[in-house]
């Protein structure tokens, strides 16, 4: 990955994710450590239909198009830190 390419986080803004634990996720930007902030791009996405599969647990986000279930701010941040440090190696 080139230096200017950012890790893309897409947060589902659908009603189901909002009700089932995801209502705070759009605040992600305020919780990113300064060290990784410039390397992350946060986007919203309309319902991606992940919830239609009964075995998957909301709320959903994708990080570089990889799905994360039961997302929380903490989980996203630690995942991003890992993705960015892997990238730096």
């Amino acid at each position, binding site marked *: 990955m080139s230096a200017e390419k950012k890790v893309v986080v897409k947060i589902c803004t659908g*009603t189901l994710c909002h*009700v089932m634990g995801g209502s*705070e996720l759009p605040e992600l930007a305020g919780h990113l450590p300064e060290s990784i902030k410039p390397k992350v791009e946060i986007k919203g996405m309309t319902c991606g239909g992940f919830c239609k599969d009964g075995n998957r647990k909301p709320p959903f986000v994708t990080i570089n198009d990889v799905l994360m279930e039961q997302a929380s701010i903490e989980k996203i941040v630690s995942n991003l830190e890992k993705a960015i440090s892997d990238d730096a190696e």
Partner: protein
Amino acid sequence: MTPNNLALLTRRELLVHLCRMLDQGTILDEIDRLPVLMRPRHNQPIRCCVHKDRAILKYKLMALLAFNVDDETDELCQLHEYAATALKREKLTPVAMTVVDEACSSCNQGSYEITNLCRGCDARPCEVNCPKKAVSFADGKARINHDSCINCGKCMKECPFHAIVYQPVPCEESCPVGAIEKDDTGIERINFDKCIFCGKCIAACPYGAIVEKTHLVDVFRAWKSGRKVVALVAPAIAGQFRQDLGKIYSSILSAGFHDIVEVAEGADLTIANESAEWKERMAAGCQFMTTSCCPAFKELVKKHIPEMSDKVSSTPSPLCYAAEIARKRFPDAVTVFIGPCIAKRVESYYLGSVDFMMSFEELGALLVAKGIEVADLESHPRPERSSAQAYHFAYSGGVAGSIVASAGSSVNAEVINGIDKKSITLLKQMAKGKTDKNFVEVMCCEGGCLGGVNTLIRSPQAVEIFKKNLEA
């Protein structure tokens, strides 16, 4: 407790299923199977075993169908039988919440405990500083004799290894008025002579053992009967979805409501009448007057600070006025208040002019069950019958601001943002005349109604979203 936890998500999952079964008319066939579907046999159990997990869900569902768990007379009575009874009932009861004893884990009485981090040091400050000689040593480790311990916490403060912890009973600790206690079997019981319906225990219990009874069966019945069902919507709704208010209103209408009456419309009458009442009281030489819109505060005064009763405004709440408006505008309709808290559920029961109540959380579950995407809807125009000022009733400080705007700058307001043990002490002092303020706004939840216990977003963010929404 963080707002997102698995006990809370279990409740929401149950609510979504309940709405879905009621919507599809399959509740009698499906409800007994739901605990089995949600806690399948080979999954890792949460409590001791999958059977316990299922029993807990059964009794939570019984509570969500608006039965008191205590009222069970036959343990073999199945959920479909409760649902059938609920589908025929003509009346609700004022009891708004119930303890699911199966889920209550009978937490140890709040106490200081020595953990295995104790190193049995030479200094032994825990033993030396204990005023009741409750700490002793055996096998090189400290132990506490709970019969003589007075829970002063000195041992914990003195331990250089942080090896002593305080373990609370979360529900009891959260209750500002000491209304929840263990019975002889160790299960928590709510004392309704003391309870102010703030709902803090519901949010605090890590087992989700205290459940607010819902009117979902009754609302769906009204829909199925073909009667018009009108939503009375609390202003705090504007902070509950990250969508504009018009889309939120569209989603409420799509869910099956015939029309919307904004409770803010009633708030305009409350502002006008409360300001006039304040002026009259000041002219009559009264020291101060408090707000009357928060029903948990009114319960607090009635049950714990009766000496303050004559200071509480006698002006009806915004909901009370809005319900009267709805009755006149839609004489044949069933009215459902959509709001943020349990205290309001109790208020709407006693008002008599509101038929049912649906919490913001239940509204969210209803939208999910019906597959309604708020973001995808066309924005419904606001009714434009209420002033912007009226919407300020949703957050702490807003009511005082509206009264200042209406009654003038001679209003010297104190704002009590959240009822807890500390603010209760302060209110008791005020009741004795120890204040230089002439108007006191009290909201039970921190942040105001936007921080209510049944909200989908907690208060600091909710207030921000709310304000942005109203500016738009």
